């Protein structure tokens, strides 16, 4: 006679017990709520962020008392008034927004062919090489990369030294707005490629071949087939690059030479240099509002369905 445990192994019994326990804790009638349960950890993390934002909002409504270096008890909009009217913050805000727009445009132009070749190449070696080049910067870190540019573009850097052999230069290539934008584009390209690659992968090769078989040349195929179908990836990449650029701190700090600050640098100054947490908080909130508004307007223009977030698209 065979032993019971052989016919019904221990592991099966354990699983039965776990299943029974799960049914008690989470009965079948709760099944529709399961996705919401899985959302809970993310909601908790986001909730903590909201608590921080509430603290920042409260802080923004108190002016610094320079007799005690504490926030005043009374509420006022003085910090917002200062943040919105001071020419310093207006200049820095405009510089940041203009920079974010330029960097987003240039990054998309450069990242698109990279992503296209990455997903379409028949050569596994080339694909691996492109992937390595894509991921390498993530392991180096933004600050180190920025310092790398100091070595390459400095007055006595590799580029100027090479130019000196031709009898030209040295040129001041660092510590200006263009150097900041250049550093930001280099930083943002991997993010854009990672956002574009899945969208391009989703476009069947046959679609492009069909266009070509109908007489479209490579440019027209790209213009009328690839780019429209890659729109979700392009919009996603644009939003990610725009927001990351708008809030960047390290690249303007390192490559800007101290006179090309972005908003994050101005916020840092208020919190850590002048000890004015109220003004820093006001600038933080304005940055969040302005950045969110810009993204919101962009999504309104292209339609949220472009990102593939709507079940039945309206675009």
């Amino acid at each position, binding site marked *: 006679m065979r032993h019971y445990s052989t016919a019904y192994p221990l592991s099966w019994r354990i699983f039965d017990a776990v299943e029974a326990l799960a049914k008690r804790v989470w009965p079948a009638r709760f099944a529709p709520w399961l996705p919401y349960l899985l959302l809970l950890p993310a909601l908790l993390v986001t909730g903590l962020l909201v608590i921080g934002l509430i603290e920042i909002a409260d802080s923004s409504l108190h002016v*610094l008392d*320079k*007799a*005690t*270096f*504490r926030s005043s008890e009374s509420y006022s909009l003085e910090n917002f008034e200062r943040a919105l009217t*001071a*020419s*310093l913050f207006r*200049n*820095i805000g405009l*510089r940041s927004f203009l920079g974010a727009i330029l960097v987003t445009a240039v990054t998309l132009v450069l990242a698109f062919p990279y992503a296209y070749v990455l997903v379409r190449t028949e050569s596994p070696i080339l694909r691996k090489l492109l992937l390595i080049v894509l991921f390498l910067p993530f392991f180096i870190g933004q600050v180190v990369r920025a310092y790398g540019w*100091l070595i390459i573009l*400095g*007055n*006595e*850097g590799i580029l100027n030294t090479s130019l000196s052999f031709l009898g030209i230069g040295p040129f*001041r290539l*660092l*510590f*200006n707005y263009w150097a900041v934008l250049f550093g930001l584009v280099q930083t943002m390209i991997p993010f854009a490629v990672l956002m574009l690659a899945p969208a391009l992968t989703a476009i069947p090769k046959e679609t492009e071949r069909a266009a070509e078989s109908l007489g479209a040349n490579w440019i027209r195929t790209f213009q009328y087939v690839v780019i429209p179908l890659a729109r979700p990836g392009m919009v996603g990449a644009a939003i990610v690059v725009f927001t990351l650029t708008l809030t960047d701190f390290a690249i303007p700090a390192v490559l800007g*030479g*101290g*006179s*090309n*600050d972005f908003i994050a640098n*101005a916020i840092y*100054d208020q*919190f*850590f*240099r*002048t*000890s*004015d*947490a109220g003004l820093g908080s006001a600038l933080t909130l304005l940055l969040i509002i302005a950045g969110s508004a810009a993204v919101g307007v962009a999504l309104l223009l292209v339609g949220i369905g472009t990102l593939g977030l709507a079940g039945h698209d309206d675009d």
Partner: protein
Amino acid sequence: MTGINQIARYKLSRRRFLEGATAAGSVAGISTLGLGQAWADEQPKPAEIVVRAWGGVWVESLKAGVSDPFTQMTGIAVRHDLTEDNEIQPKVWAAVDQGRVPPININWDTTINATKSALRGVTEDLSDLPNLANVLPVAKPEGLEGVPLVNVYAYVYVLAYRNEAFPSGAPTSWNDLLDPRFKGRVALYNDGIGMHAPAVVAGGGKLADIPANMQPAWDYFSKLKAQNPLLGEDPDFTAWFQKGEIDVACTISSNAREAKKNGIPVAWTVPKEGATLDTDCLWIPKGLPAADLYWTKQYVNYAIGQAGQQAWLGPLGLPGVVPGLTPPEDLVGDLSYPTTSDDLAKLLQVSPKIQVEHQSEWFAKFKEIMQG
């Protein structure tokens, strides 16, 4: 006497101390710190104390001149936290406000920053330090209740320059920074510290105009902005001089001296308008356990004693707050190491109180001009 000689001298005295300590036990070390024996015996020693410090030559000199001897004498390890002074401040403030033990025992800080902490009420009173009886008046802060911080040395924001840029001799005026040949080759601190007073004078005003009339400074900075200056921190200046990015800079004399020691061809001068004289200090945040506070105070006490000051400040080339310190040989007669009232008269001093009151406004104006 050079800084190296001073260290050698210090090491000899420490060796003598250790010989004595071997014979008499750790009692000798405690006596050196100026503690009452009975009181010292009652205080349990922490495993370590944490001192916030600036990096590079700054922390090296503190370690060699104060921290290592303190550890030898007490057996308490000293850890140096190199978090930026501006960044540690909100952490300490938050810890004190929330009733937590602060992340550091001692903040080595600028007097301006420390004054803000004192006004906020997060600093321990240091008026019971025995060595305070022997220091110069400059060690004690003005306009604050008690002794919430102890100034430990003075320093001068000199005009540092590359020798090759001035073949016919040192620059004589801050207005030399406006020479078109230095376009893009001038460096200042990114918050303008050290330059406000010279800018007022170089812009046609007087020291007494500060803070009522800063317009000459803003005019001067506007002209300087046209030179596309680089704005940075201490390590940036050294790197920029080294890489040939700049020819002239307003920086602390210690940085220029250290760069020169490292083979970078720079020199420094105090121009005819004068140069800003400022102080750094040590302070202890509130919230330390009693025994930790006791031993932390002994560290500060040692740092303002004759031996500690000589060994710590010699390598930095900075004048301490104890009378009778021997200046480094290369700085004798140098205005960046003021020792007489005549020297001090040639330098520009703005009281910490005025600087604290107006820092935010001056900073914003400086940034507005430079970020324009």
